[in-house]
């Protein structure tokens, strides 16, 4: 295709992404290296209903306005925000490194830094949920595919349910179900044989619950993609394998799975990315005490009474970098395929 033709075809979508994704990303990167100006503080008397007056501190707007006018972007801090305690915490880490003789001590102190603790959860979540989702999706697809024709349509709808019900309410309902007095929680208490058993009070069990929710809610996506892939399975290959005396397991392993491989890559790509950004289950399960992720940091920064935009921007940029690193093996493969295909 000629460059010019390509340009015309690609222009609308390219423009939409340029305006609404690329430009905001540029402004976010800028924001992450600039911080608000030092505030000039002023002590004044402040009066409140029912209470009376007290001395409070406020910002001297006139003095601050001059600073703002001179440098509207804020003060340049370079990578300062990326390295502060809320993010990579370089200084704190070097102190820990110096003060700790053993790895154990170092790691336990590292776990006290929010960024690294969030990373520990996010990576565990990503690397457990992604393969399990793919596996579960594949098994469901194989099983549904062997159903009777009339049952398939219904099964597809019901399989999509975890994806359809808005996570806002979906996680609220599941959150209630796993409460020690909810229906699932009650069953767990019965099975554990301990009346004081509570899933929500334990970090380990909360992680398990989040991961189960993660697999449950994204399995439908993997299922739909794989199920469709199965419809194009070349029958002659299956038959050839059968003639060669392949067992059913060998057929799946040597014919079905290789045929679905491009789909597996696609699902893996999307799932790795989405799981790395895990947010909804943590919010829905009120699991903030047990698990955090980069996305919850961004949400916290944005939703506090004082919004920390520079900090949120830095975390966003780190999310992109994290996703890029995570996906790089898959991308290198795609590049080889692309080169090979030409």
């Amino acid at each position, binding site marked *: 295709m000629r460059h010019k033709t390509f340009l015309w075809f690609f222009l609308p979508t390219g423009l939409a992404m340029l305006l609404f994704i690329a430009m905001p990303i540029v402004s976010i990167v800028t924001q992450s290296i600039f911080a608000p100006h030092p505030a000039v503080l*002023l002590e004044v008397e402040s009066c409140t209903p029912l209470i009376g007056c007290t001395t409070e501190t406020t910002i001297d707007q006139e003095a601050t306005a001059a600073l703002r006018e001179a440098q509207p972007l804020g003060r340049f801090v370079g990578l300062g925000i990326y390295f502060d305690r809320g993010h990579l915490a370089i200084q704190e880490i070097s102190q820990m490194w110096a003060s700790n003789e053993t790895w154990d001590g170092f790691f336990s102190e590292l776990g006290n830094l929010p960024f690294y603790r969030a990373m520990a959860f996010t990576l565990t979540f990503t690397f457990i949920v992604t393969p399990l989702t793919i596996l579960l999706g594949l098994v469901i697809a194989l099983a549904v595919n062997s159903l009777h024709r009339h049952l398939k349509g219904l099964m597809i709808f019901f399989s999509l349910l975890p994806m359809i019900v808005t996570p806002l309410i979906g996680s609220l309902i599941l959150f209630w179900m796993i409460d*020690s007095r909810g229906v699932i929680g009650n069953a767990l208490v019965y099975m554990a044989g301990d009346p004081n058993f509570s899933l929500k009070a334990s970090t380990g069990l909360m992680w398990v619950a989040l991961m189960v929710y993660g697999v449950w809610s994204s399995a439908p996506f993997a299922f739909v993609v794989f199920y469709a892939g199965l419809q194009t399975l070349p029958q002659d290959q299956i038959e050839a394998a059968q003639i060669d005396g392949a067992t059913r397991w060998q057929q799946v392993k040597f014919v079905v799975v290789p045929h679905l491989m491009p789909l597996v890559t696609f699902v893996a790509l999307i799932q790795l990315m989405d799981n790395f950004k895990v947010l909804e289950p943590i919010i829905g*399960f009120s699991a*903030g005490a047990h698990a955090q992720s980069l996305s919850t940091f961004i949400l916290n920064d944005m939703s506090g009474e004082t*919004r*920390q935009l520079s900090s949120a921007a830095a975390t966003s940029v780190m999310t992109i970098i994290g996703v890029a690193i995570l996906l790089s093996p898959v991308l290198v493969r795609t590049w080889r395929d692309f080169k090979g295909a030409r």
Partner: protein
Amino acid sequence: MFLKRIALAGSLAAFAASAGYACEIDGRVNIVGNEFAAIQAVAAGAKECTGASVESNLTSEHQTINVAGLSGNPSEYTSAIIANSSIVALMNEDVIRPLNDLVEQHGQDLQPGQLIKIGDNIMAIAFMANAQHLMYRKDVLEQAGVEVPTTYEELLEVASAIREQGIMQNPVGGAYASGWNLAQEFNNMFLGYGGQHFKPGTAEPNVNSEAGVNALNMMKALSEYMNPDFLTHDSNATNAEYRAGNVAIMNMWGSRASQQTTTEGVLQEVIDGHAIGAPLTVGGGDTPASTLWWDGWTVGKNISDEEAEATFIAMKHGIRPDMLNDETTPLAVWLIEGYEPAADAEGVFAAAKMGTPAYPMLPYMGLMHSALGNELADFMQGKESADQALADVEAAYRAAAIEQGYLQ
């Protein structure tokens, strides 16, 4: 919306009753604020004004959009309805105007207590108040043979008595969900022990102190009598426990008092036994371990003087004494002249009478609140010491305050 319509119908009735009280404006009015019923009623009142358009956008996301919506020239919104915690974000960004001249011209009949003054400037007009105070089951306390507590130390004894007599396993309720709620409970307790969040006149944190450690230890002691899932219980969940009869005593928002027993399906024994009380003190202190809140309206800075004047007139119309009627009165603890507090409002008034401190209206308080919310859960789970948790809070706060330019 339904509540809005009730409020509107109600205030229209009041309007008809006080014929002659008209509201004429000659400039655009646009209000952004939270969406609960009391604010819906105020906005509906403002919308009775004629002569120019009065619009409103009431949403729980108001805090994320009000700064951007009050910026620009002219700004989209002419008024933001805020609380004492959220007014600082607007003052920090310098998007609201001092109201001194408008009060002088049009606001002579406002109560002096409604004027929120920062220095010499009136920055907002308050119309309702809120505070956390005691709610308890008098029948359970009677059954256990204990008095209504006035301090947290007594509350621990009450809780222990109820548990020992086998009446309830976890008699204490508390909105201890990690994040905003947990931080708010710490603020209450910390102020109750006489703590100050910051070194006077600076943005230097001051929570890692004796008061801070005491506050955390008291919270930990209380949590022993709570449902083991307390770190996931926000005020909704805590209230649900209370209504289901699982909790006998708790510190709860006054704004929720009027609906506490009217929700469908509340157990009869809860309805009969429900009572409210003054907030508790702690550690021998005089002022309660609670904070006082107000909601009020502001006028934007980036609008013309005509629009500002119109906004002031319309908003004042929204909170005029006439707007109080049978529907609107129970919606809040109003700071409006002529408001007759119902029994539900006693807790908030008791809080005010006892000198409950206001939630700190400081430019950097929001950063402290976020830091507390994120770092205290470890202590509550017994994963680290109180000193360590408070040191973490200070470190997290310091990083945020340096970023925002409050600390060097």
